């Protein structure tokens, strides 16, 4: 008795939608596999499409994320299709696939490598840009950015500021230097992002002001 998995996603079959065939000349980037191999997925070409990874994948159960499919497309060289898809970002890196893969493809590392390529080519989701900027700005992805968090620490009997970068601005300087040198700031468009943030905040403040006046 076959049943769609209890945690299977909903399938919509579309017959009217036109789907253009893959154009080998235009769509295929044979360098893509080499890029992935270099960035952390050296065994990607071992894949024989058995589906152990995609079966194991909890994200695949809730979303259109299909590890095996991404690897297949990557092996065909369909770089643009792979890196532009937001599905790529549904992997929680739980490594269930990696632990079960019979060919040591290390699918999780392959996905992370593909994400590196995607980011380098300008495909980064807004919230990710924000969290990346947070680390550059405060040296912590989840910073101690409100007084209430400090109060919470005091409440449990700790000093208000921990000995990490939150209380040591020099550490943040060091992170800035690293991210500048490595090109990370440029990669995520840090300056532009912060400028936009500032303007947004200013606008908000002004709006608030004018609202108050009214």
């Amino acid at each position, binding site marked *: 008795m076959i049943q769609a998995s209890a945690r299977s996603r909903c399938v919509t079959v579309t017959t009217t939608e036109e789907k253009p065939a893959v154009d080998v000349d235009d769509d295929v980037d044979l360098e893509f596999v080499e890029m992935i191999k270099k960035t952390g997925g050296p065994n990607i070409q071992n894949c024989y499409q*058995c*589906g152990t990874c995609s*079966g194991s994948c909890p994200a695949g159960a809730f979303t259109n994320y*299909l590890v095996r499919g991404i690897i297949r497309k990557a092996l065909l060289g369909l770089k643009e299709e792979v890196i532009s898809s937001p599905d790529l970002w549904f992997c929680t890196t739980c490594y269930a696939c990696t632990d079960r893969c*019979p060919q040591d493809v290390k699918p999780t590392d392959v996905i992370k490598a593909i994400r590196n390529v995607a980011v380098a080519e300008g495909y980064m989701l807004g919230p990710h840009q924000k969290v990346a900027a947070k680390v550059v700005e405060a040296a912590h992805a989840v910073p101690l950015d409100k007084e209430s968090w400090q109060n919470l620490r005091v409440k449990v009997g700790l000093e208000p500021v921990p000995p990490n970068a939150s209380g040591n601005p020099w550490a943040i300087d060091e992170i800035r230097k690293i991210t500048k040198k490595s090109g990370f700031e440029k990669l995520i468009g840090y300056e532009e992002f912060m400028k936009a943030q500032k303007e947004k905040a200013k606008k908000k403040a002004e709006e608030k002001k004018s609202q108050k006046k009214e």
Partner: protein
Amino acid sequence: MTESKTDTATKVVDFREPRVGVFLCHCGLNIAGTLDMDDLEEYSKKLADVVFVKQNRYTCADPGQDEIRKAIAEHDLTRVVVAACSPRMHEPTFRTTVKDAGLNEFYFEMANIREHCSWCHPKGEATQEKAKEIIKMAVAKARLLAPLQKFEVPVTPKAMVIGGGVTGIHSALDLANMGFKTYLVERDESIGGHMAQLDKTFPTLDCSICIEGPKMVECSRNPNIEIISYADILSVDGYIGNFRVKILKKARYVIQSECTGCGECVESCPIEYPNSWEQNLGTRKAISIPFPQAVPLVFTINMDHCIECFMCIDACGDRQAINFSQEPEEIEVEVGTIVVATGFHSMYEPIPGSESKPAEKGYYGYGKFDNVLTALEVERLVCAGGPTGGEVIRRSDGKHPKRVGFIQCVGSRDINKYEYCSNFCCMYTIKNSVLIKEHEPDTEIYIFYIDMRTSGKGYEDFYRRGRESGFTFIKGRPYEVIEDPDTKNLIIRTEDALLGEPIEVEVDLLILSTAGEPSEGTNELGSKLHITRSGDGFFMESHPKLKPLDTPVDGIYLAGACQGLKDIPYSVAQGSGAAARAATVLSKKTVEIEPIVAVIDPETCVNTDRKCGICVDKCPYGAINALEGKAAVVNVANCHGCGTCVASCPQDAITQMHFTDEQIMAQIRAALEDKAEEKILVFACNWCCYSGSDLAGTSRFEYPPTARIIRVMCSGRVDTDFVAEAYRLGAGMVLVGGCHLPTDCHYISGNWVAKERIERYAKVVEGAGISPERLRWKEISAAEGLIFVNTIKEMSQQLEDIGIDKIKEENEKARKRIEAPLRRKGLIPTVKVAESDE
């Protein structure tokens, strides 16, 4: 036999002044596509004593061989060098050619410019340079070659077949029917092997035991076959035509000659224990046979279970076939050839005597969930003669399953277990599905596969039959199976890879197509026979295409699944094939063997003055005698030609024919004449490391062209003087490659001696100021082409890291200490050996 061998070894044959002919093989584009052949021709012409050079498209083909014969006659050639493939491939071919032309066949040498050069390096200057030097080394050795005569030894016209499965049975029957006495040695109580356990066979659905049973009986009736069952191989000595095999016959506590097979003892026996032959699904009595068709039909008492009530003795009565004080018996037989047909072991299959439960961590809950079975267990269940009378039922409740799942590639094609495909599982799964459906037509069948592999005569038709029968084939390797604790049903979770959807399938019974693995004791038997295992653990054939049934040991052949998993028709064909290979030896009165034995010079040996005997200790075969006050003597009949004694002799009093010190020194000097600092000098054992380097070539693995390889029969032949000479000449690196410890050595223990010697010498070398990474001992098997490549890559990198200047500096610093022993022995030539006119 001993006499004839000694005679020829000491026979003086005429030595002729060197006039070398070099034949450069294009091998189509295999060599000429990478190397500039005209350039090689020009180069070869300038080498010392070379009087003739000729290019051939294919030197091994008839026209090429004709050219050699013609040139020997026209140019009075006394040495022939063919620069082509590996000597392991065509050395015998060209020796015959040379012999046909009236020249001694040992006046021949090969330069391996294909496996060692054109196949593993890209076109370019360094590759061309390497090819030239390979030829130069071969010519240098050829100039010093001495004529030898092969030994002729008599052949014992008897054969041994190890393993009494369907393969061994066919091998034994063919040999016996050709008129040769054949010993069929079986470890278990009965011959028959796995085939006897199967219900039907694919794709024709013949009853397995109905077609194998008569063959088993035929073996027992054939006057030329002696079945030695319930027996283990203890040791194997000797060589082609003359093997001595020691066998231990385990005690059955039943006298074979007295037992009539009536079975009255079984009825009287009160004790039952799990029958491993029935996969522990059924039981047998403490005195019994494993299955009714057993051959020989002799009962065995299992002392682990017997309570010694002696009821069987009463039942046997006057026949008096039972003997509780029977002891295991050691016997020795002499045979001319051995066919190894030891089959395979199926993962999770119980081993006789162990009755062990499968591992807790079995795939897909095997061993933990009641209703997960292996395919072999299902063979017994589906068989009418099996423990359930042919009913495939659930272990949990004895009910017939309505939904049966099969998972393929369990343990196979899995980098974490066995990388290979187990070959027969796709077909037997379809077969078992057909049988189950035949028994219970309303059963639903689900087959989970990665790829269906049904190549074979009639196999694809059978796959279609499966589809037509309504089996559901699902492409997807399940990642998890869970058990419903209430129903004991199994829930299989997988992706349907063709849909791209995760699915769950609930079945009542799950059958695992478990991997075949090398049978128990493969390693131990391999060590006793000195035959190699491939990377997958099965026995390795001499050549994957042209010598699939041969092993590196002359006179020992392989057949069936012990060489790699295969189905029944293929196994039977190999059994007959191996019988034919064995008969090519047995059908002759004598066989020729290589005269590359060790000879001791009584003038130089010091055992005359004081007790030495080092060679006696080092000889793996006990072939040397050193009586007090007399020079040591090699008993050439027992000498296998490894050369370990030669390298161990402190007086250099021993010579290995065809691998003399002078010849090897000449190769070293030729290899290191130019840019020695940039090179890795490799001494490679013929059976392991050299074969591994050949495999690197045939696999077209690329590595830096820095290595210069000298072939020795055994790493035990590598004298520290050779290494010293290499450093004296400025070598960058030295690698000594042997077989894996502890037991892979073709000559029992040559590798142990070599390893100890090289490691000891490494301390001297390091003490002299040479970086330790510049001398390396490495065990590389014939199957490890990749390891050879990685070793050379690594050493090339180290060479580069150390740098030429530092190497020169180290060599200069070490010169005095390194040269001292060479100087003392007078091994340093006073005049520079001019190998070329350049």
